[in-house]
């Protein structure tokens, strides 16, 4: 069934978009990531202009993560204090990121910068996650104790001042690395047009030793707030948020996120990290492939201002 989108100015198959929302929502609920790095390319693939896709995806991610936050909240798996601290750094990071975005666009070659950043970031993060979780799984199968997560297991992040206790996550760390992580997520999100959840989850796990039980719910709080404000900002400045497209994506997304959250809760931490690592790595490799393989069409046209 075709429906005409009022802002994107083209008709789409309502069931296809719904299915895309469901699939990405499932992944988003399972891993606690926004899924923007999956959804935006999908929408562009079905013919929606990149600017409308990026702007509308923000509201879809907000809806998925809202539904996720509520269901994790009920399981007492959200560390609100940690989420708010991350947000403080995230707002500053977003501002700096938007500034750099404007500078890069002025210099030209924004496409290439974004393409290479995607490849480097996704492949590195994905590769690290896969190797780490594989080692953890192998260790477990050899009968050795699983990843050491005792009170004494500290990283450099634990030696800094301004220590804070995050009760829900049962961690006692300095506020500085928390702000830094928030800053990086906000910065990367603004420059690359992604929610940054896939970066946030591993960073929280590896640098702050946030337990797997609260990491996803907490990451979703950050995603919810940043994406809801991104929706408002996109709508106020570019007028490119397609509410009809967003609504279809949202309905699929929230349903998918519910099932995803349930699937994620029933899965072992290492397995979950391995799967997310593989997914991130796959998307990174796909971007790399796109950069090195000769494209089918060397030419592309776009209306001025629609990028």
């Amino acid at each position, binding site marked *: 069934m075709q429906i005409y989108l009022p802002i994107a100015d083209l008709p789409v198959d309502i069931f296809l978009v719904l299915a895309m929302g469901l699939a990405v929502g499932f992944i988003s609920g399972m891993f606690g990531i926004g899924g923007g790095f999956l959804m935006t390319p999908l929408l562009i693939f079905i013919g929606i202009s990149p600017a409308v896709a990026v702007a509308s995806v923000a509201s879809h991610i907000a809806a998925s993560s809202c539904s996720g936050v*509520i269901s994790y909240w009920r399981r007492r798996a959200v560390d609100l204090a940690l989420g708010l601290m991350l947000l403080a750094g995230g707002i500053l990071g977003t501002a700096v990121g938007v500034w750099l975005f404007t500078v890069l666009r002025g210099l030209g070659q924004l496409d290439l910068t974004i393409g290479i950043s995607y490849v480097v970031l996704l492949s590195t993060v994905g590769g690290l996650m896969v190797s780490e979780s594989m080692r953890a799984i192998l260790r477990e199968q050899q009968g050795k104790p699983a990843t050491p997560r005792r009170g004494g297991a500290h990283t450099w992040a634990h030696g800094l001042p301004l220590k804070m206790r995050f009760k829900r996550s049962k961690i006692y760390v300095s506020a500085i690395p928390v702000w830094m992580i928030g800053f990086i997520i906000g910065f990367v999100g603004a420059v690359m047009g992604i929610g940054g959840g896939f970066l946030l989850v591993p960073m929280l796990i590896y640098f702050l030793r946030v337990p797997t039980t609260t990491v996803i719910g907490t990451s979703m709080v950050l995603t919810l707030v940043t994406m809801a404000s991104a929706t408002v900002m996109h*709508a106020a400045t570019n007028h490119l948020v397609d*509410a009809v497209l967003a609504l279809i994506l949202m309905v699929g997304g929230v349903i998918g996120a519910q099932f995803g959250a349930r699937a994620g809760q029933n899965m072992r931490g290492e397995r979950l990290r391995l799967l997310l690592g593989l997914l991130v790595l796959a998307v990174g490799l796909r971007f790399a492939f796109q950069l090195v393989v000769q*494209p089918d069409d060397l030419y592309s046209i776009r209306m001025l201002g629609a990028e």
Partner: protein
Amino acid sequence: MTRHLTITAGLLAAIASTTPAAAERLVTSISRHQVMVNSSFTGTSIVLFGTVEPDTPASRRRAAGYDVVVTVTGPRQTIVERRKERVLGIWTNIGSRTFLNVPSYLAVLSNQPFEQITNPETIRQLQLGLADKVFPQVLGNDIGDVARDDSFRSNFLRLKTQHQLYVQKTNGVTLLTPTVFRAEIPLPAEAPIGNYDVDVKVLADSALLTRANSAFEIIKVGFEQFVANAAQQYGLLYGITTAMMAIMTGWFAAVVFRRD
């Protein structure tokens, strides 16, 4: 948006001939002057009818018959075309060309191939075919069109044709009788909102006899128009509403799917 539609009483829009020597009168009519875009819009087509009325006995004896070329031009847009090249093993956009105020939609329909209608000289002069039109481009500090075999120009036409926004059909006009013709103007769903000009040229014996102009517009109506206006005029409110909608949808799903 300031241009007024030439809607005359009834549907017939009769426009007097512009070529002084012509002994023919051309009367055209299009099936709709407004195409409404609502939520179920998936593209449509507009039918154009026309008659050529020979006024003088000499014109009645015209042997070869009339040829008709219909040109439909949509709202103008500035379009950037980019070309990828390999640099250090990576494919990236290297070259670009800006097409200034070119038609977003362009359809050329005729009853037979242009080469059979007239000579190459006249084809170029009247800009009959798609490739014969002028596409202004930014070339350094100048603005102008380039040779037809220029790669940016030909690929621009190819991509526009692939998107069905540029159409050339040399069998797009049907002569129902030697003087009555019918043409169907295909409008894909991606055809932009705005005013479309319809230009009908009648040729005989390799020369332009007469031409007539008409127009239609594509507009959004109902819900589509409401959403588009809201997004444009009340951006902040629209954004807050969308964000609230997202939060409500998420909350609703969490409540509906609650199991414990």
